[in-house]
């Protein structure tokens, strides 16, 4: 838990240094109107200091959001000299979130960074807050595009598929092998989109030695996923990809207690707390997910850039998000965080969610 702090601090220092460098270079060639002229700290990104930035997750006391907000958003807000708060309901309900949005708009919050419990139900309140002058950035879970200024998208289907194939290919080495996919439910939209993209990826010549032989469904149920993993290995393959957090943890639990441990390679989308033991005992070399801390960090910078007038949320607008570098606003006012983040034994202890 504390293990993440020094690293984050180093990252923050590095980002500050980068920011300072950027400041000097940009000021030389650009007559940026500094909105923060009264604050006396000019900056190339022209992010105003003193912005009130509030994170409103689906619910509080959730380790995922504590990572994205307190380890990501907060770091960013401190970098550009704003004031940070995390607030929200203790149960993930849209009506409770509406009450908090109303409160934030009364408190004169400059930026509301929100993960929506319902894409429609919180719309009215968000638009009322925007009328009152707040900028709204969604992350993790989007609202209707009409009620927010920007959506920070954690990953695309293509990015996820690419990273999964790369991880399994790295794990097995140049000889390749047979792959099976352990998915969630047969009609899960996101899972099927990722599997389709993986097939496209596997068709490429550089992946010729990887062969997809089976796709099974564990229904995101721990017991069923466990049994499906068992069944798969009794049949044939020597590689498993499970792009679902329930499936990958169940498969890892089966592998770690079987003769296949170390012989069969497993990867997927998982969370560090679920997978830590299997990384440590060598069952799994690496797995992927987006880094929630980066997601919160980017969301804070995007919101600040909006509130400072650096960007207006139009396609093609660019802004700098501290240590993460430069980002461009894509279609439908979305910003893509980037490729999924790879967790392995070198970094897994930095995360707690």
């Amino acid at each position: 838990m504390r293990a993440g702090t020094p690293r984050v601090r180093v990252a923050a220092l590095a980002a500050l240094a980068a920011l300072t460098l950027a400041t000097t270079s940009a000021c030389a060639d650009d007559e940026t109107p500094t909105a923060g002229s009264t604050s006396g700290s000019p900056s190339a990104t022209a992010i105003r200091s003193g912005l009130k930035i509030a994170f409103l997750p689906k619910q509080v006391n959730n380790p995922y959001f504590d990572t994205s907000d307190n380890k990501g958003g907060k770091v960013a807000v401190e970098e550009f000299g704003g004031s940070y708060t995390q607030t929200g309901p203790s149960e993930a309900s849209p009506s409770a979130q509406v009450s908090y949005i109303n409160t934030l708009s009364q408190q004169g919050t400059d930026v509301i960074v929100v993960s929506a419990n319902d894409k429609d139900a919180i719309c009215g309140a968000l638009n009322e807050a925007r009328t009152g002058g707040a900028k709204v950035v969604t992350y993790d879970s989007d609202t209707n595009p009409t009620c927010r200024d920007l959506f920070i998208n954690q990953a695309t289907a293509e990015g996820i598929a690419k990273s999964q194939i790369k991880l399994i290919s790295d794990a097995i080495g140049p000889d390749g092998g047979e792959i099976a996919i352990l998915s969630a439910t047969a009609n899960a939209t996101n899972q099927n989109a990722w599997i389709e993209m993986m097939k496209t990826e596997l068709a490429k010549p550089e992946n010729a030695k990887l062969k997809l032989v089976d796709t099974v469904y564990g229904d995101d149920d721990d017991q069923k996923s466990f049994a499906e993993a068992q069944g798969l290995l009794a049949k044939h393959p020597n590689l498993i990809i499970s792009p679902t957090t329930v499936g990958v943890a169940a498969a890892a639990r089966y592998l770690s207690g079987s003769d296949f441990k170390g012989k069969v390679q497993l990867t997927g989308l998982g969370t560090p707390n679920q997978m830590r033991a299997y990384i440590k005992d060598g069952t799994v070399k690496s797995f992927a997910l987006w880094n929630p801390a980066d997601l919160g960090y980017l969301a804070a910078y995007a919101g600040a850039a909006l509130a400072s007038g650096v960007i207006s949320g139009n396609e093609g607008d660019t802004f700098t998000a501290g240590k993460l570098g430069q980002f461009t606003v894509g279609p439908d006012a979305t910003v893509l965080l980037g490729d999924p983040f790879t967790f392995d034994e070198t970094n897994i202890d930095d995360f707690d969610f």
Partner: protein
Amino acid sequence: MAEWKARLRSALTSWDAVVLLAFILVAVIGALTIDGVASPRFWRFVTLEAIPIVLIALPLTLVVITGEIDLSVASMLGLTCVVLGQLWIWGVSSLPLLIGICLLLGGALGAVNGLFVTRFGLPSLAVTIGTLALYRGLAYVVLGDRAVADYPQSWTTGAIRPIPGTTIPWMILVVAGLAVAFGVVLYATPIGRGLYAMGNSAEAARFSGISVARTKFWLFVATGAMSALAGVFWTLRFASARADNGTGLELAIVAAVLLGGVSIFGGRGGLVGVIAAVALLVTLRNALQLAYVPANTLTIVTGSLLILSVVGPNVAGMLRERLRRRRARVGIADPTPTAAT
């Protein structure tokens, strides 16, 4: 007339007054110390939040006074929401018609509760815990994890439109009208007196010629219909019909009814205290939220208030009882031995 006056006086000198005073205190202290509580916007948000709770608390107060309970209210609200959404998808585009259908549906759901309680003599706690799950389950059958959100804007903004010249939503007038209607029934009709009698002793009430079963049945029907009305408001206010609409709301409503001084065992309490309790709970929560108090602390505050609401009237009653006994012991000479109680 004199009896009516005495009734009014006793209503105002009891727990009702305590809760009302607590609400006024919270409002005044909040306005003086927390930035934003004094603003009209704050009261608009408080009113919007309180409307569905009051709508359901009105009939539920009467139900609890008779010694029964209805825990399925939030599930009836949720089921009404999704049926409204589904009918809208199917092309029913007249709002009065939709409201009418929803009220009938709510009445029917309440009638099921009432039938089990009055016809089969089952405890309402058990029956409505059952229908709490049943109605919520049916809501998921209707819409699953989908949401219906594409209502005409005139409906969604119409539901929360302020009274001209103020920030207070006009729905408060509907709520006030209904509150007066329920108040008249409870305080000024033989039915109202009958409800208290039932709560104190169903046997005695039965012998006095009140139809206990029929009255309770219609109270459950009324609770269903009012939950449905709250469901319509909920759907339009949030512009979203989902199967999980209002999940857990029954706890907030029951909390308000108990904090309002209604005895969970029946026979005691009134509407003034309950409405004041809703105002107190919603205002306190919003004011503390505005003062940056985290959600975990808010839950603790609400929980403590609820404990206080159960303990408070009992302690007050105990003190009053002891006082009465002491007076009785001191002397028969006391000219007005029991008038104050």
